[in-house]
């Protein structure tokens, strides 16, 4: 009876440690996928309408639950995309207590977005095909 209990307990411990490892792998993989996806997501959102930093953060939050980015990381990304001339920005001081820096996609950004979208669609289709085969 004791050996059965011990075996069950060991199995439980094993299951917990496996799921923790799986979780870690999922976290690592998610981070890698998000890194590329967030650039595409921001370019796509801003290609439809210009938005200021906080707006962009909230839009990403609302539309892309998978990305679930930390708030502080969106601003550096916007800044980097601006430095790479994929985005342009202008300040709006209409409300002097809350000046807003609006971001919009440049022509260069639109072209990059178009190519990135094609690549993403291809990738998704191929991944889906592989996954279907495995299933």
């Amino acid at each position, binding site marked *: 009876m004791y050996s059965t209990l011990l075996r069950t307990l060991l199995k439980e411990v094993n299951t917990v440690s496996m799921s923790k490892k799986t979780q870690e792998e999922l976290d690592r993989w998610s981070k890698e996928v998000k890194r590329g996806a967030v650039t595409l997501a921001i370019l796509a959102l801003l290609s439809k*309408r*210009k*938005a*200021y*930093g*906080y*707006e962009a*953060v*909230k839009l990403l939050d609302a539309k892309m639950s998978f990305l679930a980015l*930390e*708030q*502080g*990381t969106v*601003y*550096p990304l916007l*800044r*980097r995309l601006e430095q790479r001339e994929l985005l342009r920005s202008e*300040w709006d001081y209409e*409300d002097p*207590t*809350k*000046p*807003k*820096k*609006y971001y919009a996609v440049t022509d260069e950004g639109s072209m990059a977005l178009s190519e990135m979208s094609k690549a993403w669609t291809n990738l998704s289709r191929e991944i889906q095909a592989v996954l279907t085969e495995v299933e």
Partner: protein
Amino acid sequence: MSSNDPTKLIEQYLERVRVYLPLDSEDAIVELQTHLIEEAQRIGGGTMTAGSAMMAIERMGDPKRVANEYAGSGKKVGPVPAEYVNPVSRIIILLLGVGAAFTIGLSLIGVTITQLFGADIQNWPFSIPLMIFLNLFILFVIIGGLSLLDRDKPLTEKTTLESIFGIGVDGFKAKGRWDAAGDFIMGVFWGVVISIPSIVILYTDAFKALYIYVVIFLFLGAIRGALFYFGGENNFNLAVEAFLSVVWIALAVILIDVGWPIRYVYNFNGSTWALFDLEGFFLSNDIPFVPFDWIWIFIMFVTVVISVWRIFASSMKISMYLRAGKRLWWQGNWGERRRLRAPLWRRFLGEHDQFQQKDTVYHDGYREPEEEQ
């Protein structure tokens, strides 16, 4: 002590972020400030409270990390962690600049660095590595101790270390607009005053031969003040400042040998104003005139130290702006920081911080509902 004023909490937090950002990052601060206000208002259901501000700040995260990610400067340099690269390099540059300024100032008045404390430093310059090592050791002990004391402070409260790093931020702050106006007014005022004939007759013969160069310099200083007043800090104005500082050091080298420049003072003898020979009075009464020369040397020393610092800071900022892709002239800023709270005098007149009453309106017209607390 943490405040209950939400605007103060946000300002304190942004002050901490500023310490870790490179110079000229005011745009980043304003962007983060808007984010924190809007997030705090959203959390507070349209009104910003101390609690909602604190939550917004906590969601934003540790100032070191936020600044480091924002600036994209995050590369570890030697033993210095990425987050500290900006403040540490800034404070090192500040110390080097101040050190250079004092060394040049001292050598101008004939004191060598090895004699600074009344006696020659032994084994100079081989004592330098040992001194550096000892100072670094003391520095690490102090930093370690301060970090231990600061570990329980809230996110909005500056650590002692950040207060020290903050000196680096203030040391390179752009010239304020009123300081620039002061430079202009004082330049014109003193330029006119020291060239008035009834003042010129007070000078020693040696200074009389040179005072016109000082007048020209003062007027050029006034022009520099006007340039900063209208254009703020930009490469052209910084170059003018550096150039004038070089000119002043060259002038100071000559002026220091001239000695105390005023020989006579006006004396009212009951009916008229007459000239009184100050130097003659001291010498005829066997009183040494040397203290006046010391005062003159001290004035020259201080002005040369300031000039060397200006050359140092201007050169550093010009190279920083050039790296950022800026050219010679643009409408620069005046070192002002955007304050969330109305100034004390406005609050005294009954003006409140308006944004606390405002709804958040998004670009697409969506308005955050305002709810009563």
